[in-house]
């Protein structure tokens, strides 16, 4: 493929991690991040669509409940149905769940408080477009920052999710043990990140864009964006 990998970062009113996502991507020479306004109906040739963190529409109703009706989301859904790569981070994950592009729902943290801290994750799958630069079972440190990150799903969905191995990241301790004590928000089965059945849509509560430079205390997020770059370059 000639040219760079185009990452379309969607800006909803109330998004607040769109600059961070674009900035983190700008540290990859192969990436070309740009913004997509929520009222737009053209993804402008994006190879990857990123739904960033924040409080879209203030999240005064349910998180992500209004954003899913934005004009741009119809295009994102069509893009995903076509096999396009979509990454939802934090509020982006919440929006994808509301839009039924990913299973389950995100409830309020079990501690009933906003949480912002470093968090260990175990990489459950490395055969996805999002995680190929990680090694199986690798423990990475990526911060969480949310009030509604308590993922849950009905029994039937849970069974299907396990069967199809849709869980990509689980909350764990420093040694990689997936325990309740290592679960920051009460998410069912410690689910931190989840893949669509098609394997091309990923939603995750932790913020990989916050750990892409050593000056910020970690670089474990680079593997995720790097994997996406590899995938797109390979497909071209």
């Amino acid at each position, binding site marked *: 493929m000639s040219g760079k990998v185009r990452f379309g970062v969607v800006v909803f009113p109330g998004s*607040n991690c769109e600059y961070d996502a674009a900035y983190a991507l700008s540290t990859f020479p192969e990436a070309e991040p740009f913004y997509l306004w929520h009222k737009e109906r053209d993804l402008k040739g994006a190879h990857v669509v990123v739904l960033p*963190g924040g409080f879209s529409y203030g999240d005064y109703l349910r998180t992500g409940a209004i954003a899913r009706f934005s004009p741009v989301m119809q295009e994102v859904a069509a893009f995903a149905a076509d096999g396009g790569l979509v990454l939802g981070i934090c509020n982006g994950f919440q929006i994808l769940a509301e839009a039924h592009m990913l299973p389950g729902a995100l409830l309020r943290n079990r501690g009933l*408080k906003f949480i*912002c801290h470093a968090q260990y994750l175990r990489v459950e799958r490395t055969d996805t477009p999002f995680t190929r630069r990680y090694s199986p079972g690798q423990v990475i440190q990526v911060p969480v920052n949310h009030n509604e990150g308590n993922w849950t799903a009905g029994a039937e969905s849970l069974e299907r999710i396990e069967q199809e191995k849709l869980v990509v990241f689980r909350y764990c301790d420093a040694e990689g043990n997936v325990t309740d004590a290592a679960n920051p928000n009460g998410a069912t089965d410690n689910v931190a990140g989840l893949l669509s059945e098609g394997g091309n849509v990923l939603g995750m509560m932790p913020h990989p864009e916050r750990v892409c430079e050593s000056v910020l205390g970690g670089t474990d997020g680079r593997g995720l964006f790097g994997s996406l770059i590899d995938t797109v370059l390979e497909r071209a």
Partner: protein
Amino acid sequence: MSELYADLGLTRDEYLRICDVQGREPTHVELAVYSLMWSEHCGYKHSRPFLGRFPTAGERVLQGPGENAGIVDIGGGLAVAMKIESHNHPSAVEPYQGAATGVGGILRDIFAMGARPICSLDSLRFGEIAPLPVDTAASAAPQGAGGTPSVAPAVAGGGMERQRYLFEHVVAGIGGYGNCMGIPTVAGEVYFEDAYSGNCLVNAMTVGLVRHEHIVRSRAAGVGNHVVLFGSKTGRDGIGGASVLASQEFDESLEEKRPSVQVGDPFTEKKLLEVCLELLARRKFVALQDLGAAGIASSSSEMAAKGGVGIDIHTDRVPLREADMAPWEIMISESQERMLAVVTPADWEDVAAACDRWDLDCTIVGVVTDTGRLRVFHHGELVGDMPARALADAPVCTVAQERPAHEVDQPVELAAWPAPQAPPEEILLDLLGSPNIASRRWIWQQYDHQVQLNTVLLPGGDAAVLRIKQTGVGLAVCTDGNGRRTYLDPYRGGKEAVAEAARNVSCTGAAPVAITNCLNFGNPEKGPIASQFARAVEGMAEACKAFGIPVISGNVSFYNESFGQAVYPTPVVGMLGLMPAVGARCGVAFRREGDVVLLLGDTAPALDGSEYQKRWFGRVEGRIPDVDLAAEVQLQAVVRRAIAEGLLRSAHDCSDGGLAVALAESCLAGGLGARVNLEGIAGQAVGRYDVTLFGEGPTRVVVSAAPELVGDVRRLCEEAGVPCRVLGTVGGNSLAVQLGAEQVAIPLPAMRDAYEGGLERALAG
């Protein structure tokens, strides 16, 4: 009208003066506007004569006090805007919304200058949330005097349950607003003292980044230009907030004041922020001003007064939440998330289009005139007509100062003071778990402290450090102000607040470059309060001059009293430090086994005003040590130089809880123990190991350095005349302290449990 003025918080003298300025009896609209503009909150009636003492000039200063925020140059064409402001009374009445709108207000002040907010800090004070160790022992409570409190009475604010409720909801409100806006909250402080039980303090500070050419001010200009209101609609919320709420003491009518508290909408503010910065970058504003206290009345009159022009406002054009609002209500409503701008007719279409894109109301509500007057029209009828300059120039009140009766000239007499009440291990663990010292993790984990990808030194140290992506420089930010110590000596306390804030940023390696301050005091009409205020300002000003740090913005909050009981005099200093490269920053954590622990500066600590004195003797007595400003300046310069030369692996300011707590905090932050010998350090008294370990005083920093670099550290200190004493080495699994015959070793896990769990235990009750 003559009956109404008292209800609006005006005195008879002020009313007569208004009649004099107007040349007639004021209309209802005029009286409402005057009552707000001449309130203490907006008019600085009691403080203005003193604030002139602060140095405000400096080569980096691009904007001093008098604007929405002050601005300093940080090189590379960039500048930093910053300001701190109180939202004490609203938070005492409705903690979540009071704190949230406090954050919202200070954020608007920053982006009204054209700056993008890059971080916030919060300085909080509440009543006690957990019993003191002394409460279980027999001890005589000291007497408060002169209308100011001692440690004992907690009558006004309800019990500890109420204080916990206030604290938890204030923290949630700060997080709720800042997190949604995507502004990291990176530092701050909180203290719990009975003196704040009836009147909590909630001070919010924001720092913003702006390119020099994008700075905008609030001076209205250009006769015929549009006056444009944009953002939220105007409602009845917050009517009289500045006069009724902020400029009076609390009494039994506290609950009735709830409707004076506004409700925050961070989502709208986020849109407002983005549209303002977009339009500023396109230079679409002649002037910009946020709407805070006293709403349109204060914004429009200040803009007109600063520009030497007039403004006509048409209240019937203001988009309303409630259709039947009267003109006077529209003028003084404190509905949040609104801005007022002066826009040329040529730029109006672009401004309207940008607001439409962000789904924000945007309306031409008035026009710039050459009259010098604020005129208010309602459906064409003139309902108010006032000289803008007179509104912005509230009458000054002078109160005879009277020294508070509890203040003394001498420190406590140690020979007559009760012996330590427990072994040193027990006292240290208690202090580490004290709500005033324990880890603040419980608070800052509820704040997004990382968004914007700049936070390179996280909350929990002496100051937070942010990197500036465009230039690579580092900013260090902190707030400091110890009311309990200032209560014992306002002059020395004021000095200490500035010195400590400067010391905190110096310990990260940054040079202090600018101050914003929030002065929280009781009722200024009382002599003892007037005295506390004047002397605290004097002490602060003297310290600012010694350090060469200008005060670029600030806020005064008076009437922090309930049932006649004032809070501790609490000047809060917000400090900005600058380091040339963020890579040279230093933290508080001991980092390597075998490193040498040193004490730089060796001033004698004192029992007076210490956390230890309060917790273990139930007394706040004596006189805090004076800051030797020349020594303090030298010490901080040495610390910064040693960091810049790469000589130090850690640096930690020695303050609350004294030397023992500073050592313990460096151990805990690094997960490493230390072995130290404190024999021979300054201020030792026979039989009083407690003063050496837990006594407090300024001008001391605990550092660690690799053994091979200790000689270089010593040389730097010698050259600067700064005392430098080797205390011991980093290592082991405990903090082992030797002091004459006393030998103490406290295991790290016990210290960690006390320190990390302190706040949560207090909140669990």
